[in-house]
């Protein structure tokens, strides 16, 4: 700014500022070489900081050893000590102090105010600061503490909220690196004001210093899971400059890693086009979250979409539309991600973590998918993500949007072209799909589905869709598709396992290009080159699929289902993918196609759809559903189901791929679906579809679910219908979405644009998805399927193992649904729906889908299915919920529409509640010749679609299409259940929401309110979702987590709230950025002081949010620890029961190990208690200061005459008072 002016001003009027300066002057009184005459240059040499620190904590700094000349050393010392010892985030960089003759005044003010706050008992801006009280204060700190701290270094220090605490541990060492980073940054331009990850300017509010490097808070993500890293919850990653969730590692590292990879994809997604290119790199880095903040940012979009939230969503949408979603958006997204991440890591309790991780994985998968096709891929990924988290839905929406864009494009004119492309691709995609189908199914679908997804999102976002549609032109669509494919493949790949096959998805076209990205993304090992990656992925997928499939059948993942489901799904997908993998490229393609498909999809759609759907499913399924699906898809599990399905499936496959799922159902469905499709295509597809769907769904479900699900299947039916659509559409699914979106037509487009679109439209509400699926399946799909079949056959070989695949192929949705359904038919459906949604349009379609399902019976078939399924599922089995979740998700997606994200996220919820679901978009892309991807998107609708598709496919082409499950939503849902909802709402309102938020904020300035507020605002819309989610969470936890304490807060709730907080933080940061601009533009005029007050107020709001966030994280972590303790205790007791003479060395070692572990857990728990206490104390002081500040502010405004005096007095008052009290306490 204008330092000189500032100085003069400072001297003059700024009450608040002057008060601050006055305080500093007091503190530095008596220190040599320290003279505070302004708030800039007086601090430049760092001695002032050191003096303030020394005054209060003489033990921390040897002031006499300092020299005025050592600017860097002085500042560095002060910043480091303040951060490490006091928890005051280092907003400033010593480098800057050296380089800038006149330090940035606002930065200085903000930073110094933290000192003021801290030493007054108020916490520093970051809120972090764990104020470590002098030992003298209390005798409390037990030796145990120390132990604890050591033991769980990674664990969040309560104080560390900002992560500073963390830094504290690493302190010096870390700082060094930081410097380097900073320097580098500096070279770029303004001193270290660039985010290490995204390279964008970091505004004061967004500042997050870690390891000496500057980040956007949102960019500071886990390399593996892409979640925003929370203060004490991260640790340095393997790769330099990367960070990962501390909880992550232990818990579900592998998944996480895979997730991380996904994140990479996500990132790409966000970036979309740009990202695509970057995606690979980012993906590679993705794992290294930190490094690839950009990617993260992009991811955010995706993730954000999925997780976070509206904002992210919006951002995503925007981004998708425009590419780089603006930093802000990405940031937002990132937030959501971070939230989710955070939640997962932190809270999460490990279980939760597991979930999250799974979610993440799924997300990743989804992301991966997304990455491939930014739009499509994203959609897929989003969808997959969405399931887990509501936010996912958003992402899904974003995806959808992107997809929509694509779809729109496609739909508009592109459709044909797209379709053609799709067809072309489809063949490939179809093949690919098969590989990818498992995981990729979604991807495959993604193409179409993505389109649809986007569409689905779009649906929700419809406006966005329009945008997307507008933006992307057919060509654009193509490019997008390519990108999508790319991302998808990458994402898929990243996804862990199978998804890579997604790469396969990409494979078609993108694959190769994507390959690299995928590998990185998919495999934690980013190393895999794309080409290799694909193969490897395919192999991995296959392997994965196989194992997973078995497992999946088991429903192992269920507990984690949300998260795991994705994984499982992946697995399942992987299985299916395995085949797919072979076909991977195909599948990936499918997804991409799906996403892209929308554009080109028409033909390919089926395949794509299938893949996509399968994927989603896989993701969702991962949990339970996925397993089922997987089983179906890939392996034996499916066999049982498959048996049913198989038989049918094969047929169905023929139609579509068959989707196996559908197969059984498909048999029925198949016929029906195909008919429906035809019908749909022709005319009343919707009806047929509905009929088909209904039947099919149930069947599919049954097939997929084999078991009870079948009923759910009915619910699924809807989905199935969607599936069919998806299969057909991938396109189909997309179509459904498109139907919903009609505009989106992408689905229709994909499959048969017109019909599809029409259908979609019709279906939309009712069974748009169905229609879509139907359409997609029947017409295009079948052809494609048939075409693909050959490929599929290959896949079949692989797939064969998994009949499901066939089904999947038919409709990814089916497969996915089936998978999902495993758990519950619903899941599949849900997935399918989701996929559909995603494909269709994102939100809109979803919504319509959902609505239709719920609201409308016929078309609704799907919806009904969704609704019913959830219910059934819920009713049927609480645990199932997980599986259900998938289903649910699907349902949600299809049914609810709450927005894709919700569906996805909700899947679990839905399971419990039934509304949300569908996060999982299973897009099974059948490689079918038609190459159509059966619309992965459809898969969202997958359940229904798949069935239909499957049927259709089966009929059309016996060849099993490759299924790609788009589990998009599952992850998201699980992760961001609430957020998702919000997101959805937000998405719908998008821009509006911010305003709302603001308003809320304004009203709710209080920290406590923020979360609540968001909820309230958005809750109403999401209300159901929340509830559902919550219920879902409950179920899951109840089932999965052994401990059900009365006080136990379901992880989901926590995650929801965290997401909300994340959104709020995003909003606050946005506001803060604006305010910073204002502050900088008003040089010392009268408005500055009041602006400063507002500024500090905003900072305080952020603090409050961070507080709540940390509290939630503590709670979550505590719960995880408690459950862990029980486990360890149980094992230890069993060991100790053994008579000593019976014990061998191994037993003793284990006993000792467990005992140590137990102590560590207890210590961790205790540390949390202490951290909470420290926070409480600090917060109390903060509140007092804030209150005083507000009073001053009001005073200054009312009596303008003597604002300063008042301020001074008060400030002095508080200051003196605080100090006194402090001193006293110390003494």
């Amino acid at each position, binding site marked *: 700014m204008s330092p000189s002016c500032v100085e003069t001003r400072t001297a003059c009027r700024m009450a608040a500022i002057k008060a601050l300066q006055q305080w500093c002057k007091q503190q530095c009184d008596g220190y040599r070489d320290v003279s505070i005459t302004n708030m800039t240059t007086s601090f430049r040499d760092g001695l002032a900081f050191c003096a303030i620190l020394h005054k209060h904590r003489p033990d921390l700094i040897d002031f006499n050893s300092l020299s005025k000349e050592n600017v860097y050393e002085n500042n560095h010392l002060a910043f480091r000590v303040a951060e490490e010892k006091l928890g005051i985030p280092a907003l400033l960089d010593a480098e800057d102090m050296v380089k800038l003759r006149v330090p940035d005044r606002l930065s200085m003010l903000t930073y110094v105010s933290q000192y003021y706050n801290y030493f007054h008992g108020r916490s520093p801006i970051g809120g972090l600061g764990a104020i470590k009280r002098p030992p003298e204060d*209390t*005798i*409390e*700190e*037990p*030796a*145990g*503490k120390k*132990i604890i701290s050591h033991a769980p270094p990674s664990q969040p220090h309560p104080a560390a909220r900002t992560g500073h605490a963390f830094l504290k541990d690493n302190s010096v060492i870390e700082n060094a690196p930081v410097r380097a980073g900073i320097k580098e940054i500096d070279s770029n331009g303004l001193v270290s004001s660039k985010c290490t990850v995204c390279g964008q300017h970091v505004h004061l509010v967004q500042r997050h210093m870690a390891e000496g490097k500057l980040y956007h808070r949102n960019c500071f993500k886990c390399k593996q899971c892409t979640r925003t890293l929370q203060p004490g919850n991260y640790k340095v990653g393997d790769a330099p400059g990367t960070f990962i969730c501390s909880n992550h590692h232990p818990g579900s590292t592998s998944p996480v890693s895979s997730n991380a990879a996904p994140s990479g994809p996500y990132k790409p997604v966000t970036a979309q086009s740009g990202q695509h290119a970057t995606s690979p790199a980012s993906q590679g880095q993705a794992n290294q979250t930190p490094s690839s903040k950009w990617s993260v940012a992009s991811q955010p979009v995706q993730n954000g979409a999925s997780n976070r939230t509206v904002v992210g969503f919006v951002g995503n949408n925007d981004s998708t539309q425009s590419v780089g979603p603006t930093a802000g958006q990405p940031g937002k997204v990132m937030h959501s991600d971070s939230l989710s991440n955070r939640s997962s890591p932190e809270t999460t309790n490990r279980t939760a973590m597991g979930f999250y991780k799974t979610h993440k994985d799924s997300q990743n998968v989804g992301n991966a998918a997304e990455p491939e096709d930014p739009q499509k891929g994203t959609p897929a990924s989003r969808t997959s993500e969405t399931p887990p988290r509501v936010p996912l839905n958003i992402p899904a929406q974003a995806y959808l949007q992107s997809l929509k864009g694509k779809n729109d494009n496609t739909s508009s004119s592109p459709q044909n072209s797209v379709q053609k492309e799709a067809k072309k691709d489809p063949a490939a995609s179809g093949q690919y799909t098969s590989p990818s189908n498992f995981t990729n199914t979604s991807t495959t679908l993604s193409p179409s589905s993505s389109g649809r997804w986007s569409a689905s999102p779009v649906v929700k976002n419809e406006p966005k869709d329009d945008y997307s549609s507008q933006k992307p032109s057919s060509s654009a669509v193509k490019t997008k598709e390519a990108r999508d494919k790319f991302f998808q493949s990458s994402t898929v790949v990243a996804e862990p396992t199978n998804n890579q096959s997604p790469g396969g998805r990409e494979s078609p076209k993108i694959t190769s290009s994507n390959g690299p990205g995928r590998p990185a993304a998919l495999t934690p090992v980013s190393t895999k080159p794309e080409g290799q990656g694909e193969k490897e992925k395919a192999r991995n997928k296959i392997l994965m699929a196989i194992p997973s499939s078995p497992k999946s059948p088991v429903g192992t993942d269920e507990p984690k289902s949300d998260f795991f489901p994705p994984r499982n799904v992946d697995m399942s997908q992987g299985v299916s993918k395995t085949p797919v993998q072979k076909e991977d490229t195909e599948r990936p393609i499918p997804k991409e196609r799906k996403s892209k498909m929308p554009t080109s999809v028409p033909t390919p759609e089926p395949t794509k759809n299938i893949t996509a759907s399968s994927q989603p499913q896989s993701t969702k399924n991962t949990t339970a559903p996925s397993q089922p699906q997987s089983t179906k898809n890939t392996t034996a599990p499916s066999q049982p189901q498959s048996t049913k399905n198989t038989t049918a499936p094969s047929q169905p496959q023929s139609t579509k791929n068959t989707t196996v799922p559908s197969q059984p159902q498909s048999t029925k469905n198949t016929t029906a679906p195909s008919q429906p499709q035809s019908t749909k295509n022709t005319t009343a597809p919707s009806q047929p579809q509905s009929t088909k769907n209904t039947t099919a769904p149930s069947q599919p479900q049954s097939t997929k679910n084999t078991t009870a699900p079948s009923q759910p299947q009915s619910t699924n039916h809807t989905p199935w219908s969607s599936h069919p659509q998806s299969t057909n559409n991938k396109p189909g699914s997309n179509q459904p979405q498109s139907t919903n979106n009609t505009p989106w037509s992408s689905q229709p487009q994909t499959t048969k644009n017109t019909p599809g679109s029409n259908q979609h439209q019709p279906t939309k509400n009712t069974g748009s998805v169905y229609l879509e699926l139907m359409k997609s399946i029947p017409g295009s799909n079948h052809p494609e399927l048939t075409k693909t079949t050959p490929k599929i056959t290959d896949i079949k070989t692989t797939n064969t193992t998994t009949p499901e695949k066939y089904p999947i192929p038919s409709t990814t949705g089916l497969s996915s649904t089936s998978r999902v359904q495993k758990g519950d038919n619903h899941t599949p459906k849900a997935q399918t729906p989701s996929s559909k949604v995603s494909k269709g349009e994102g939100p809109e379609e979803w919504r319509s889908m959902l609505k239709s399902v719920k609201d409308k019976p016929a078309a609704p078939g799907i919806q009904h299915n969704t609704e019913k399924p959830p219910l059934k599922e819920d009713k049927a089995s609480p645990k199932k919920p997980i599986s259900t979740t998938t289903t649910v998700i699907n349902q949600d997606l299809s049914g609810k529409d709450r927005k894709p994200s919700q569906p996805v996220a909700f899947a679990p919820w839905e399971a419990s509640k039934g509304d949300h679901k569908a996060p999982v978009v299973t897009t099974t892309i059948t490689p079918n010749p038609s190459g159509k991807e059966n619309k992965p998107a459809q898969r969202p609708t997958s359940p229904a679609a798949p069935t239909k598709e499957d049927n259709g496919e089966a009929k059309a082409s016996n060849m099993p299409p490759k299924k790609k499950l788009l589990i998009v939503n599952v992850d998201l849902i699980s992760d961001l259940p609430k957020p998702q909802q919000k997101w959805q709402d937000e998405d719908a309102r998008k821009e509006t929401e911010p305003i709302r938020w603001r308003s809320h904020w304004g009203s709710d300035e209080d920290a406590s309110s923020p979360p609540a507020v968001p909820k309230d605002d958005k809750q109403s819309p999401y209300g159901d979702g929340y509830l559902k989610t919550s219920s879902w969470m409950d179920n899951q936890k109840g089932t999965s987590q052994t401990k059900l304490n009365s006080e136990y807060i379901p992880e989901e709730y926590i995650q929801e709230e965290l997401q909300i907080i994340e959104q709020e933080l995003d909003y606050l940061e946005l506001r803060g950025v604006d305010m910073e601009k204002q502050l900088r533009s008003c040089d010392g005029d009268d408005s500055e002081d009041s602006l400063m007050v507002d500024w500090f107020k905003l900072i305080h709001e952020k603090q409050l949010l961070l507080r709540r966030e940390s*509290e939630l994280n*503590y*709670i979550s972590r505590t719960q995880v620890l408690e459950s862990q*303790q029980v486990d360890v*205790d149980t094992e*230890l*007791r069993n060991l*100790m029961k053994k008579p000593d003479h019976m014990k061998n060395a191994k037993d003793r070692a284990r006993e000792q190990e467990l*005992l140590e572990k*137990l*102590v560590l857990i*207890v210590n961790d*728990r*205790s540390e949390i*208690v*202490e951290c*909470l*206490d420290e*926070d*409480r104390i600090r*917060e109390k002081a903060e509140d007092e200061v804030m209150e005083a500040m507000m009073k001053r502010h009001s005073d200054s405004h009312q009596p303008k005459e003597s604002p300063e005096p008042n301020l001074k007095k008060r400030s002095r008052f508080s200051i003196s008072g605080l100090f006194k009290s402090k001193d*006293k*306490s110390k*003494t």
Partner: protein
Amino acid sequence: MAKSYDHLFKLLLIGDSGVGKTCLIVRFSEDSFNNTYISTIGIDFKIRTTEIQGKKIKLQVWDTAGQERFKTITTAYYRGAMGIILVYDITDERSFENIQNWMKSIKENAAAGVERMLLGNKCDIEIKRKVPKDRGEKLAKEHNIRFFETSAKSSQNVDEAFNTLASDILMKITKRSAPGAKEVDLRSSTKTKNSNKCSLV
């Protein structure tokens, strides 16, 4: 929520194995009782928020294993405790005799000014009583600490014991923080209080 309290106190229970430390804590924190004996492994704690003199006090009650084998683990937690409760079993004379050893352990490991309290548990089993109440009172008086006979099973005096200890700590803290010079007074007052309480009990 998690932070809606005014003070956080850390209490620690020690005593021979089987005297009922865990049962006392469970009774206090969860108001439940389990007859089956499950020896504590190492260390654990439970949280309960109580209200004393209008202040919300969050009590973190540490439960230690009484077995000798875990002693190295448990003694590490003495230091962080603001209040230590010594527990013996009135039906087990040896556990009462060992109180002296536990006192010694406190002296060696805990902070100097830690608040202490003596509890004779299982007072519901009057038939098997081996340690007369007056012996416990006498011992408490010797150490100038409070004494209660409690029963985790019947819930007798459990809340009273914990709340009394928390109250003493609270008083100690407020005195200390208020006039810095009153610390000395605090102790004396506490002592007097203790004696009073003992008589009351």
